[in-house]
């Protein structure tokens, strides 16, 4: 590897831009995980399958209906909310009973995930679908002349949509009545119920928000890699979980920061390590493992709930 390339500021900047936009998608995806974990203390392993269905929903709206991108984003988020609410009714709510095993909801979400992916394979086949090229202007923005940074419109959109979503989620959780109820339910379902909060409807709200975030991530990743197929959830699922653990289970700030950190690390692995492109998929696992070894509560997490 050429050493001058390593130190070249444009190359470095380019990788930062790429890593940032990649990481923004991971963050949006991971927020859905962390929201459900924060409230129900379970990992929804069907989140990635939800996201895959959303990407297909967006693709259908863009191609079959020929509608513009903003509508596709909305449709995809709506589809995500719908799937997640369905999951809550079929896979999670029946298990929220006295003396139920903590692992049970995770197991049922694994079953749901397998069903969702298999049905998608049956419906869409296993070949890759792509967004129509007319969706976005394919010419990148050049910053600093033709030799400078190349920023695609997709990247601009991804980062800005992600920022808007994260900010609105933060506002929703911290400033609204429902957000406050959500935090109360996260702290104690029993106490919330006694205080007159409709716990089931709050959990339903959380699932629809998490699903909508999966929907947004589905469209964004479609823009980023333009690669839509039934198995796409598997590629992002582990990354999402690594992000959630890196940031701290249940922490919103953690998911945002963790996603960006993972995106940047992955991009740099590809850019700076010889053969990095081949094992970029292992980076998330290694990072996950390292965090569990060194700081299992994550960057923003609390220690008490981690130990056995």
């Amino acid at each position, binding site marked *: 590897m050429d050493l001058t390339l390593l130190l070249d500021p444009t190359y470095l900047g380019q990788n930062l831009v790429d890593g940032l936009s990649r990481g923004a998608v991971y963050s949006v995806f991971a927020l859905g995980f962390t929201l459900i974990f924060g409230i129900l203390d379970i990992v929804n392993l069907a989140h990635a399958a939800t996201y895959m269905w959303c990407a297909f929903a967006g693709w259908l709206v863009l191609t079959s209906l020929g509608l513009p991108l903003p509508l596709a984003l909305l449709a995809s988020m709506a589809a995500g909310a719908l799937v997640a609410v369905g999951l809550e009714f*079929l896979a999670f709510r029946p298990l929220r009973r006295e003396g139920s095993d903590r*692992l049970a909801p995770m197991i*049922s979400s*694994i*079953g*749901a995930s*397998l069903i969702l992916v298999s049905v998608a394979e049956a419906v869409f086949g296993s070949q890759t679908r792509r967004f129509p090229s007319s969706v976005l202007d394919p010419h990148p923005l050049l910053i600093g002349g033709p030799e400078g940074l190349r920023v695609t419109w997709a990247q601009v959109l991804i980062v800005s949509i992600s920022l808007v979503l994260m900010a609105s989620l933060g506002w929703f959780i911290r400033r609204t009545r429902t957000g406050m109820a959500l935090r109360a339910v996260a702290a104690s379902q029993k106490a919330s119920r006694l205080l007159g909060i409709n716990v089931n409807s709050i959990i339903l709200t959380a699932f629809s928000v998490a699903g909508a975030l999966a929907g947004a991530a589905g469209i964004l990743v479609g823009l980023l890699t333009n690669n839509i197929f039934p198995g796409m959830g598997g590629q992002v699922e*582990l990354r999402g979980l690594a992000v959630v653990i890196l940031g701290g289970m249940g922490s919103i700030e953690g998911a945002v920061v963790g996603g960006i950190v993972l995106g940047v690390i992955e991009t740099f692995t590809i850019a700076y390590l010889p053969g990095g492109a081949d094992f970029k998929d292992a980076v998330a*696992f290694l990072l996950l493992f390292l965090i569990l070894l060194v700081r*299992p509560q994550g960057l923003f997490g609390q220690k008490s709930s981690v130990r056995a």
Partner: protein
Amino acid sequence: MRNKTPSAWVFGLVAIVVVLDSFFLYRNPADFDRLLINALLALSAFVTLHARLLSLANAGFMAIGAYTSAILVVKFSWPLAASLPAAVLVCGLVALIIGLPVLKLNDVYLAVATLGFGEVVRIVIVLNPDWTGGPTGANLSTGFAYALMKQAQSWMLVAFLGLLVYFFVRMSRSRTGRAFRAIRENPSAASTMGIPLVRYRIGAFIASALIAGAAGVFYAHTVGSLDSTDFQFGRAVNILSYAVLGGAGHWLGPLLGAGVLTALPVLLRDVVGAWFEGLRNFVQLPNILNGLALMLTIVFLPGGLVALAGLRRGRRTVSEAALSREKGPVATNPGPSKEDLLLVIQDLTVSFGGLNALSQVGFEVPRGRVLGLIGPNGAGKTTLVNVITGLVRPTTGRVLWKGREIHRLSAHRIAVAGVGRTYQNIQLFGEMTVLENVIVGRHPRIRTNLATSWLWLPVERREETKALEKALDLLRELGLSHLAQIPAAQLSYGDQRRVEIARALALEPELLLLDEPAAGMNEVETARLSAFLLDLKRAGLTLVIIEHHMDLIMKVCDDLVVLNFGRTIASGDPETVARDPLVVEAYLGRD
């Protein structure tokens, strides 16, 4: 549920699965190996689920086993028989490396950490084509290993599976099996019985990896070619679905689950598909069925098929004669009497998020004395017991046991050192019988292990008989022997409290911590309990009692410590403390 005769159900279920699978094999005898390999894989998932762990690493370990053996046989001309232990050993080592850090954490983390494991294994396979043949891989039939491969015949699989089943049958009746059942029902209570939680979890995870690795070896040498995509997430979920459908409560479960889910989709496709064109080409059918099996079982039949059959592992039956025998003396363990101070609490502070549950509490418990710990609700009494037994770590301060610091030890070590306890909120192993609960309490004192049970060594029988007799003595002593065979959850509140005391005494502790032992008992029962506690005291046992029944406290205790809002407000002999104005105020309020 309880009154069902399990045997009829078990025979019924087994018969259904056997018929289903015979029909399935009749249609294609070549599927026999696949059925057996799925049964092995199901057992590997069962081992972790039984220990209440959710692992998705089985497919990855299967791949490691398959590739390791294939490489050894094809590249290094090892005999198959030698490659099996080597491949399995590699799986065990990898499991140890992953398990050590992850299994110390809360149970959610194993699922997350193992989720990507199959993917990493796939990457390693793809990146080393010289060894593995790349993504679609090693075709074993091209090497001269072909002849060897054909020797890996079904009888080996049958023999291996048979051996495993033997191991499981023996284990379920052993001390180890009991400990796993206790962990499954209540990990934290199990650890205060002296069961090393993390070690058992790591053991289960490694055992699961070994079995999955062996399944991989057989898979490689019966299928004859390896494809890296065969060991991914879908496979992991399929393996999980066999174990979940069958049930994680009994070793028969995974075998039933694998039997149903291997045969059903194929039969549906071939037999029902004869009438429905669409079904014949529906390649996603097995996965959808497995997914449905997972969801439906978890929601409607959480214990799986074996729960339907009323099967639980290693239920111990005792003859009426044994139960009605004369009562023996209470087993207590006064220990060598050289140290006078058994327990010393120094400047103990515990804060939960800025709130001090205990602040600078300190007292001493001399050997043979009975200390009463009293105070209003929320005073920190239970937190104190949790600190002493290793369930809560103090923020500052020390706990000394015979002069040695114990506040950083894990709960099971403290129990082994001789500290037994009962719980304010009853923490019995509800599905296990009263007798089993008490025998679990004796766990660290029983000197057997898996090897003694598998090899039928004389010590196994001797120790088990001794444990049974000691447990029956304790039950008799507490007037519980007529309830010995009943699942603990079905007992009345007062009886459950006494079972907890019997279970704690089974440890033969030097110090017994009783957290509200008389709660929920009426006057007569409380008086009987007081008499019993005095008996224990006379036998030399040291006691710390938290209690609100003041008559019991005044009758039994030598010293009192009064806590309020986490602070010691009074201590000394019961008469003086009861008259202390601060104590009266804490209990009754100021005028």
